[in-house]
């Protein structure tokens, strides 16, 4: 069989990529248009219909409000450049509680963003997140958290506050009415991450990331069910499309993941 035949499931069904990024210039002020166009070309090549993107600020220093506001404006540039195809998620640094809450309101109510993206500024179960989570509950939007249970020393040093499945589960139990997404379960110690959130129905996950270990997808579907898994690539389309095509799971489960059925309402609301 030619792999292009297998790719038909992407071409013939709705596909939403829930964990994507469009990059900016180094000052987080301007969309890198050429890179964004190439990203969209790749999505078209593999049959992705809708792209949910954010621009988290990758720094171990505190991200000032004007920087995360600027980063969200860059994401909004991408939303406007590819209308009907790209949806925004707001990145905020929760240490600036007042500004972060205001920025979430601006992004959701004025720009039509569909959720928020959090980085490795604090563990997800840190109390600093309380006002952020409560605002997301009020607005009924999902919280996508950059997550991984890292085993290597360089990442433990570089991302000392990176959230893993246990932090996600703690936050989810404290806020059962919130909708959490544990980002890229496939990266780092993925069996640990899955096991930690298995019994938390309000924690979803996405399958993005450059690691494509067999049998990640089969394990995730068995533990969480396809309804709790979202498709995404985190800028690694070949790894992610490949792991979905290669997974020994049912076609129906693949379609459920690709469509992100449980999250359709967030996109539908943004489209109105």
């Amino acid at each position, binding site marked *: *069989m*030619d*792999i*292009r035949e*297998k*790719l038909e499931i992407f071409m013939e069904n709705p596909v939403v990529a829930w964990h994507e990024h469009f990059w900016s210039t180094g000052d987080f002020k301007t969309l890198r248009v050429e890179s964004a166009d*190439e990203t969209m*070309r*790749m999505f078209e*090549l*593999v049959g992705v219909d809708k792209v949910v993107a954010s621009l988290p600020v990758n720094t171990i220093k505190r991200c000032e409000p004007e920087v995360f506001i600027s980063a969200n404006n860059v994401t909004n540039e991408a939303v406007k450049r590819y209308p009907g195809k790209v949806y925004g998620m707001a990145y905020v640094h929760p240490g600036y509680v007042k500004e972060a809450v205001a920025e979430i309101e601006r992004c959701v109510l004025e720009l039509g963003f569909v959720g928020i993206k959090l980085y490795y500024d604090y563990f997800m179960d840190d109390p600093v997140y309380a006002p952020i989570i409560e605002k997301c509950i009020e607005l009924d939007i999902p919280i996508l958290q950059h997550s*991984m249970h*890292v*085993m*290597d*020393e360089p*990442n433990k040093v570089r991302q000392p506050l990176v959230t893993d499945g246990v932090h996600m589960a703690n936050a989810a139990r404290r806020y059962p009415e919130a909708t959490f997404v544990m980002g890229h379960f496939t*990266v*780092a*110690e*993925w*069996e640990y991450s899955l096991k930690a959130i298995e019994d938390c129905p309000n924690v979803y996950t996405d399958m993005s990331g*450059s*690691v*494509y*270990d*067999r*049998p990640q997808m089969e394990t995730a579907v068995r533990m969480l069910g396809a309804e709790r898994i979202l498709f995404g690539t985190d*800028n*690694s*389309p*070949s*790894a992610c*499309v*490949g*792991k979905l*095509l*290669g*997974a020994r799971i049912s076609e129906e489960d693949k379609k459920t993941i690709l469509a992100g059925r449980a999250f359709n309402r967030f996109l539908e609301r943004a489209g109105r």
Partner: protein
Amino acid sequence: MFVDINAYVGHWPFRKLVFNTLSGLDELAREYDITHMAVANVNGLFYKDANVANLELLRELEEYNGATKFVPFAIVNPTYPGWEKDAREMIEKGFCGFELAPRYHKYSLSPEMLYDMYSPVHRAGAVMQLAEELGVPVRICASFENFRQRSDLDTPDNISGDELFALLSKYENVTALLTSFSLLAVVGKLGDLVKARKNIYFDTTQGGMLDRAICRLALSRVPQEQICFGSLSPFNYIETNLLRTQLSDLDGEMIKKNGAKALGII
């Protein structure tokens, strides 16, 4: 002919593998008309005597009757007594090449590095000399799991470009299959050696080749004739590498066949 130069049987101590037998690999390969797979027994990384794993693979080959043709590589541990005799015997028994696992057997590819400073011989070099004498290729896999997920009991380091350069520049007549190396990071350190040597091959397991800029950069460092299809099965999903081969700007038909030249089976 469609050749995968990067496959294994055996068990991984840190997580359960599936399709990790010759029959399992055959099932994966047949779905996409892969005709040949270069295979080694990953148990050889962990057994004190690596050759026991080679003998396991030999037995499995004798019992195997599937469609995919397997090209077996013997894992050689040059720090273990009798390695040279064992390695010669495995070639006599039909194995087609050697595989080095310096991070697991605790030696270096470069004679200048710590592990080998007090060794009277350059151990990786001794295997290369034997490979040259017997006219067989040597395979080196950069890593089996992403560095972010490795168990504390696994090796934390990947093989560096500097080490590779030290080895490859000295043994220019030996065909080298460098699997799961980053075509951008590691190959950059090998500089012009790759272009000057037509017998150094890489595979597709690392790299976002669907991105045209990345693909262009990789091809500026590695001639397309030296990139082979490789899947690191059964650790990885094979489909990712099929997409990289067939949907990117690479010449997919050439990539599928390059392994035959690398393995010396044409």
